[in-house]
């Protein structure tokens, strides 16, 4: 149990996927303009990432490895995830229209996103068991959500601030992310991974 908690905490805080591993930056900067949207995309990323890394684990260990096709990992994973997200979108649209209205639009954004794609790859690289890779995916998702919610609340405050003209928009957002990363750097070394 303790082992899984460590893995979870390490992915949420110490090795935060956005701020220390630089994954999922496109949506991190694109969607973090409003708090509501950032919560929505955080949920979407967490659930998609968990489901897709579970599937990727099954495919890797029951198809790719037995048939010695591991060199096809990249191709198979990207197609698997992209088609899975499309399917999920259709299912949600049909059976849960309220949910679809809430975060359906974000699903397409994350269909081919580096953060969703990277978690299964990292799991494979580290030889995680099924449960371990699920926990690590949940942790990565929660870490993403934490980072984007923090960023969105900062950017909402920033609207009232007087920013130099050339730094407006993306420039100041990057510097803000740098400050956040600096804060998260304080956690490094807390958990030996």
């Amino acid at each position: 149990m303790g082992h899984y908690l460590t893995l979870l905490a390490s992915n949420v805080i110490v090795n935060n996927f956005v701020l220390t591993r630089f994954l999922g930056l496109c949506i991190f900067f694109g969607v973090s303009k409003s708090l509501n949207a950032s919560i929505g995309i955080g949920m979407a990323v967490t659930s998609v990432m968990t489901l897709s890394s579970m599937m990727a684990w099954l495919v890797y260990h029951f198809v790719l490895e037995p048939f010695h096709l591991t060199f096809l990992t990249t191709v198979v994973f990207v197609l698997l995830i992209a088609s899975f997200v499309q399917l999920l979108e259709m299912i949600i649209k049909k059976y849960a229209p309220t949910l679809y209205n809430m975060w359906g639009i974000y699903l397409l954004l994350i269909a081919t996103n580096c953060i969703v794609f990277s978690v299964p790859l990292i799991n494979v690289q580290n030889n995680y068991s099924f449960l371990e890779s699920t926990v690590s995916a949940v942790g990565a998702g929660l870490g993403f959500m934490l980072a984007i919610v923090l960023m969105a609340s900062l950017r909402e405050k920033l609207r009232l601030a007087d920013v130099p003209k050339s730094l407006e928009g993306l420039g100041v957002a990057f510097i803000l992310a740098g400050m956040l990363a600096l804060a998260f750097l304080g956690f490094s070394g807390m958990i030996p991974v």
Partner: protein
Amino acid sequence: MRELWNIFKKGIIEENPIFVLALSLCPALAVTSSVINSLTMGLAVMFVITVNNCIVSITRKIVNPKVRVPVYITSVATIVTVVQLVLQAYLPALNKALGIYLALIVVFAIILARAEVFASKNKVGPSFFDGLGMGFGFLLGLLLLGTIRELLGAGTFFGIKVIGSWYNPALIMVLSPGAFILIGYIVAGFKILIKHSEKVKLERGEI
């Protein structure tokens, strides 16, 4: 010829993938802690984007528009796998340093964007130069970041010490916060540069 040159050129500053379009930032920040990593990554991306543009352009009349995106993704993933295998075979150390980010080339927004916006509508020649220009802009961006980060963060260039021992390396530049802060200022710099060149053009009456 001039047209091709213009297609090549626009990827470098006006539509620089990293600093202006802000696409594919993950590798731009993650692998640029040293110059050699930036160079390898930049070359790999340049190769993938150019080859993919050519393939998409050649097959643009055969592929049904309804399934075009999966086709693009498969094509990119295949080229990336080739690059991965080549690096694994001949440059294992670099392959290890780039790690997972090499596989992540597959999902770079810039590659799919060029396939969708440019290569699917143009002939092979212009698509080739578009890919080359965009890839080159990307490479230059990575090199710029890599050079500054390695110089300030370790006092070295390509692993060779260039700043004397009086300089105390600012470790933060090689770590993640330095990357974010540096790219923030470069984006601002590019904004000023583009605005300035537009003003000059306006004064000359070119627009």
